[in-house]
Structures are given as C-alpha cells and as structure tokens.
C-alpha cells in the first residue's frame, strides 16, 4: 500500500522546474543511460583506439546478449513491483537440460528443451507466488537453491558439455555466427527487446503489468487480476531465460549447477541502472538495453586496459554510482542537500525578503 503512496507523493513533490524548451528531466528519463553509454564509448575510443575494431565490437555485442535478454524480462518484473532472484538457477538448469537434450536429439530438441524448461521454471515460480502466496523474494530465493541444486544433481557425473566434435553444428553456430557482421546473439537480443517493447507498451497485458506495479490496490479495483499478471511476469522471465540460454550455452559450451553464479544481481542491476524502480510502476526498456551495453563496454574497456580485477571492481562501482547520481540529484526531494543545491538543475532559490 505504501509503495503507491510514496511513489505518488514522490511524483507530486517533484521540484518546481525551470527553463521552458529543453526539458532535462524528460530527456534524462528516456535517454539518460543511453547518453552515459555514448559518453563511455567516446572515452573508450580515446583511451583504446582499438576499441572500435570489428572484432572487439562484435565481442561486446555477442557477450551482452544473454544478460540483456533476461534483463528485458526482469524490467517487466521490476515494473510490476517484484523481482526474480532465481534467474541464475534457471540459467544453470536450462543450460544443463539443453545440453543433455542436444546430446539426445540434436539442435531441434535442444531448442525445444531450452524454451520448455525455461517456461516450466517460470511456471513453478509463478505458482508459488500466486497459488501458495509465498512472497516473491522468498519464493524465488528458494527456487534459486532448488534450480541450482537440480542442475548439480544432473551433473554429478561431470558437467554437461557440447562436445568439440559438434563445433560445426547449427546449434553451436548460434553463439558464433555473424549475420552481415552482426553477431546472431545480439540480433536475438534486439528482437527480444523489440517484442518486449511492443508487449509492454502496446498490449493490454503490458499495460496491466505496469498498472499493477504502480498501484496494486488501484489495479485490483480496475479488475486486474494480481495472480494472472504475476504469473505472466514469472512465465516470461522463464521464457527469457530459455532464449538467453540459447545465446549463452552456445558460446560457453558447458554448464553445471554453478553456472553464472550471481547472475540475478547482474540482471537486476541492469534493469535498475536502466531506470526501473524497485517500488514498481517505473522502468524503461531503452534504459535497460543501454545499461546492459554500458556494463559490457565498461568491462571490455577495463580489461583491455589491463586494469587489475580489484581496481576493475572499484571503477565499475563508481561508474554505477555516478550514472545514477545524475538522475538522483535531479529527482531528489527538494531541500536538505547543499550539494544538490550547488549542482541544482532548478532555478535559484526564493529570494529572501529583506
């Protein structure tokens, strides 16, 4: 209940703004992270002239895909006021099952297994949340353990692998093929975001996802079924993991229960960095898309500059803070911060009389 109060007041208590014409706030809402990305790319090109080499760009785009695809669905979830901590476990499990399926039935079965297992994972989460009323945080945290555990059980006799002999198979190509110089995995990610955008902004279901996240109670009185919409969100999360797995496993070729430890946090980070609010109701697929690339570009830049892992972390953390501080300073509650006033995007304070 309070999330709507707070969100609403936060929205209604936006500081009085300033100049007509260029509206920084509106611009930043839709293009903020994208512009940080552009700045970072320019910095990268200056620091590392090789940055724009075809091979490097392809590499960045190719490796972003699996994270991006799940982050797209996670944006739905966060806008809906929930999140899924089990996506890392899902990715591990779906990867293992997919590789086994490939061993049994080749590419077609592998594709079907990835999508099918992904959706099944999503259904399990959805059922726990809607039918058993387990809070999403605990339900998906519990299922993170369970999915990983199952993946471990399945790989007790060694990890699932794509054998080297299959290097030329169509399945393995998903991860390495370039179409007109663009990595296939990236194309898949762009398609996922495109479809995601249409579903979120142009369908009734998408509208209900956002509306419910904005105010669960208002949604209830508008006839939006909490259970249905939550189920939908968890199922598309599962589906996205299924698709992401195809772009992931065909690049890495192996999986077991430990695959992509900490994935959930990276996915949520991308969505939040992209502008999604964990309070629900707010988010942007353009932002998430840019955030995914932002993190990849930054990582690539730091690696190619030979920055040590510990300093990579420090820099990555600082960039996260800076990227969000720009927005934070803009929308923060008025008053109380000297720094904010110094950097103020607002007009001068009231002229004190006398």
């Amino acid at each position, binding site marked *: 209940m309070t999330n709507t109060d707070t969100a609403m007041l936060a929205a209604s208590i936006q500081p009085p703004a300033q100049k007509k014409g260029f509206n920084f706030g509106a611009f930043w809402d839709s293009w903020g992270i994208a512009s940080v990305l552009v700045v970072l790319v320019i910095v990268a090109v200056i620091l590392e002239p090789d940055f724009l080499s075809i*091979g490097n760009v392809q590499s960045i785009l190719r490796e972003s895909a699996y994270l991006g695809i799940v982050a797209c669905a996670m944006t739905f979830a966060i806008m809906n006021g929930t999140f899924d901590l089990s996506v890392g476990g899902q990715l591990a499990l779906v990867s293992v099952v997919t590789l086994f399926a490939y061993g049994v039935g080749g590419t077609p079965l592998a594709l079907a297994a990835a999508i099918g297992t992904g959706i099944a994972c999503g259904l399990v989460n959805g059922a726990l949340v809607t039918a058993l009323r387990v809070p999403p945080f605990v339900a998906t945290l519990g299922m993170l353990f369970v999915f990983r555990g199952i993946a471990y059980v399945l790989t007790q006799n060694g990890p699932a692998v794509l054998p080297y002999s299959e290097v030329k198979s169509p399945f*393995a190509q998903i991860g390495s093929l370039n179409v007109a110089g663009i990595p296939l995995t990236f194309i898949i990610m762009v398609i996922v975001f495109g479809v995601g955008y249409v579903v979120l902004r142009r369908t009734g279901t998408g509208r209900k996802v956002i509306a419910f996240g904005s105010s669960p109670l208002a949604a209830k009185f508008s006839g939006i079924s909490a259970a249905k919409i939550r189920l939908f969100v968890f199922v598309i999360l599962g589906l996205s993991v299924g698709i992401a797995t195809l772009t992931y496993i065909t690049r890495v070729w192996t999986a077991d229960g430990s695959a992509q430890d900490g994935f959930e946090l990276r996915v949520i980070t991308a969505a939040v960095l992209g502008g999604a609010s964990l309070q629900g109701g707010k988010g942007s697929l353009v932002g998430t898309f840019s955030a995914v690339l932002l993190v990849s570009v930054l990582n690539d830049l730091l690696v190619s500059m030979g920055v040590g892992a510990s300093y990579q972390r420090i820099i990555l953390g600082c960039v996260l803070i800076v990227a969000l501080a720009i927005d934070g300073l803009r929308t923060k509650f008025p008053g109380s911060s000297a720094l904010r006033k110094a950097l103020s995007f607002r007009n001068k304070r009231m002229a004190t009389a006398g």
Partner: protein
Amino acid sequence: LTGCSTGDAPAGGDGETKTDITVGFSVYDMQYEFFQEMEAGTKAAVEANGWDYVLHDEKSDENEMVTGAQALLDQGVDVLIISPFKPDALGPIIAKAQELGVPVIVDDIGGGGTPYDAIVVSDNKDGGVQAADFIDAQVKELGLASKKVVSITCEPSAVYAAQRNIGFVEQIESLGYEVVTELSGNSKAEEAYTIMKDALAKDPDIAGVFACNDPMAVAAANAITDAGKNPTKDIVTVGYNGDGEALTAIDADGLSATVAQDPKGMGTLTVELAKKLLDKEDIEFGNADEREVYQPVTLITKANVADFLK
C-alpha cells in the same frame, strides 16, 4: 589479425629468440594466491625469452573466460596459455585458435576432449592418495584408536578438486577407514569452519580430516581448536595447495600437512612447452594420449616445512 601465427621459420635453434612473439595468458582468477604464483612463473618465463606478454583474468567466470580468451586471439597472440575456470568451456576458444592457427597450452586443469596442444597438470588424484597415506601413518604414530575421517571438498563444479577427493577417499577406505562426513565447503574457509564443527558434534572421535584446499584446512583446524582439540595431535588435519597460510600453520603445529603444488613451476613449464611448439620441437608427454605433462606434487609436513617457508 592472423598475420603473426606460428608459420615463421625459427630464427635460431638456440635460446636467441624472435622478438615479435606475443604470449597471451588467460588466468583462472588473480584473487587467489595460487594463481598469482602461476602467473608470476608464466610471466617471468615469457619475459626471459624476450617475448611480449598479455594477461587476461577470467575472474572465475566462464563467460569472461570465453570472451577474454577469444579477445586475446583476436588481438593476434602467437601462443595462448590458459588455465581455464571451466575446462569444458575450452571448446569455443580452441575452435577459434584452430581457425587462426594459434597453439594452445592448457595449465592446471583440462578435459572436455578439446584438441589443445598440451596440458600441464599437477597430479591431483595422486595428491589425494598421498594425503590418505599420510593420515594413516600419522594416526598410527599418534596411536589414535578411531578410524573415522572427514573430507571437506571444494565446490561440486571444481573438476580438479573432485580428483583430489576421489584419490583420497579411495585410498583411505582401502586402508580401512570410514569417511563419516563428506561435505562441500565450496572452497570457502567460513563454510569449512561450520562443517568441521558440525562433524565434530556428530562424531567427536574423528581421527583425520582432509580438505581440498588450504584455506578450508586451516579453517577446519581452527574449528577443531575451538572445539577444544588439537588439530595435529588429536586429529590429523591435511590440506592441499601449499599456500603460505598452511605452511605457517604447519610450522606452528596448527596443521599436520599439506599437499603442495608448484604453481610457479607450472607456469614456467607452460612457457617451455610454448617455446617447443613454436620451434616445432617434440614435447615429451607424461601421457601422450591426453597430451599431459605432469608437474609433481609434494607432501609438506612439519619435517620439511622449513624448506618451503621463505
């Protein structure tokens, strides 16, 4: 990109080397002392040859491993040395290396049936066997009555560590012991501590402990101490790796033994093999089928720890 691969004729048969050779080394994770040593050995050997050296840190992430190693190949390295986080993820890397004609030498752990040119391994299974033999001898010497032992393993996904455990369990059981607790501490000291305490609560009369790495062994020893026992006299505690903390502990009677690998030596060895490959010389494999070159492991105990402490 593919300009500088292995095709050049050797400039001279002896140590005088070409200066335009670049060696790429993709390391498992530079957070760990073990790999820091391995990297130091590799780097020193590369530079001794007068070659260029590029390092990539996989940071314990299979995705980073594939992306980064492929990036090294894209940059045009002449040899790729890799200590893989996930040996089975070598496939796409080797595939690209083969496309570009770059030789690949794997360090430490391999498998997955990929056609790399050579692999340097320390004999993990044998290390486990040595640990078992030592525990048995020590138990007899101390006159412990119990035949119960504990094995604390690394994360289930760590292939190399699984070999240590297999060697240990097979050998210790053949010596008439019972493994009463066999749990994963996920390579983390803090988890090993709890596991050891719980194991002692269940079986207070444990005779020996083998942990798959030294941090876990030292943590287990601490748990034993906190439970009011002595980790060298009441229980025989053995670790694996030969990390500094284990050596210090052995010296201070806080740990019975550790099975030491020689990461620095492994690093040096990979570069020697690289030179041979570039010079088109033959490599002497310890196991030619698997293209394995062995790096022996040594058991460090109170008796010989002084030799290893710097």
